[in-house]
């Protein structure tokens, strides 16, 4: 019998306690950021959109090997001995011409494993996160500027096959 009344008292008391918490929040400040009008600045280490400064790329292929989902496609060809020697911005000589450097952002898992092995630090993850596109083909980012001199050799390894142009 006493248990019956104790239960009723407990219920009422805990309900009132809970209501006190809610009403305190009701009168308090809200924590919402109204998105398109107010945006917050991301920290500098944010891993958002990938960017490759193709002028510094020496074509070593370390990033291609490091990527766990194989989303970087790169083809290179040797620069001829008679061409002018070019250098990256930190002085490394560039021996290969990068004719294709595609990153498929729809496959990318944003793990950042590709930026560490890059010797010239040309592959970076920037802080830009508003890069939605209307069609999936636009997610294939093509960074290479040079055109191949020789016709491309047929590629055998399936995971590094160049996608259909």
């Amino acid at each position, binding site marked *: 019998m006493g248990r019956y009344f104790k239960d*009723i008292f407990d219920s009422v008391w805990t*309900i009132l306690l*809970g*209501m006190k*918490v*809610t*009403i305190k*929040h*009701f009168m*308090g*400040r*809200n*924590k*919402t950021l*109204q998105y398109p009008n107010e945006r917050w600045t991301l920290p500098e280490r944010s891993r958002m959109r990938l960017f490759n400064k193709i002028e510094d790329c020496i074509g070593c292929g370390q990033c291609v090997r490091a990527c766990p989902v194989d989303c970087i496609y790169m083809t290179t060809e040797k620069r001829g001995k008679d061409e002018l020697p070019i250098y990256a911005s930190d002085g490394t000589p560039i021996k290969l011409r990068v004719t294709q450097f595609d990153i498929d952002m729809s496959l990318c898992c944003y793990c950042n494993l590709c930026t560490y092995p890059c010797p010239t630090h040309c592959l970076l993850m920037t802080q830009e996160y508003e890069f939605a596109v209307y069609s999936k083909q636009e997610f294939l980012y093509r960074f290479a500027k040079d055109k191949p001199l020789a016709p491309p050799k047929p590629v055998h390894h399936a995971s590094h096959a160049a996608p259909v142009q």
Partner: protein
Amino acid sequence: MDAIFVWLSGNIAAYARLPESLQRLIPMVLACLICLTAALLFVLMATWGERKIAAHMQDRLGPMRVGGWHGWAQPLADGVKLLLKEDIIPAEADRFLFRMAPVLVFVGGFAAFAVIPFTSSFIAADLNIGILYAVAITALGVVGIIMAGWSSNNKYALYGGMRAAAQIVSYEIPSVLAILTVIIHVGSLSMQEIVLAQQGGVWNWFLFRNPFTFLAFFVYFLASLAEVNRTPFDIPEAESELVAGYHTEYSGMRFAFFYLAEYANMLLVSCIATTLFLGGWSGFLSQPLLPGAFLFLIKAMFLVFVQMWLRWTLPRLRVDQLLHMCWKVLLPIAFVLVMGSGILALK
């Protein structure tokens, strides 16, 4: 209603030339239209208010964009959206019952507004069995809910309908007993009489007049929460368990009817509680400074706010705990209160 009749026959010269039946009919229709419009406007505002109150209790903002200032036009946008939706009736559903169910629930919710005394002169129908009519008409909603659950041909909806039937029918008893504690002191079932018995300042309200009616207010409030399917008693529409309960299969305007009926029911029980326990349109002081309608609305809206506050604070009860609470907790307490109130009234 009589006030309208007096006003019309006094100010419009041609009014007396209409046939007798029409002279009686027009004020009735006008009064009902005013009640219905007021209730619907309030219901629209209540949907906006619920979202804002919920949001502020959860440290966020709620609607902010539609209409400019804090999204006040959000219910209008929702209404337009629901009107434009495709009306889907499941292939195996019982078509007649499926269509009738929202109508019954809507009527059960809004028809009882006819006996609510908003001010001392305005009440759409001053029946001498006012409160009995209100309780009886709201019971029509249960039939609608069961019809909705059954005719949807959906196991989840059936569960919702069954639970709702058990819940609403059980909780009518403590709620009527709590009402009875007040009626004993008034001696009449008419709503205006009940308010007139509470004149003379805040200490004459039935809430404060004697401890039995004080407790009866809480019993009535809890029982009416269960009547309108609000948390903690919102099992029939428990979102996390049954997807949406008895109105799972409804879309578009039919769903809007259920939705509006829920808020109308909330307002209705708040109005009845205000009339019975908080003095209706009578004021806090013996000579009220503010108009009666304003006071009534303040009290009713405060009770609606408390209902929303409870919804966003409490978990929901399980079906057997809910029925345990009705039959083993609220009902004995309600009986004791009726007896105590009766003994006090004998003196």
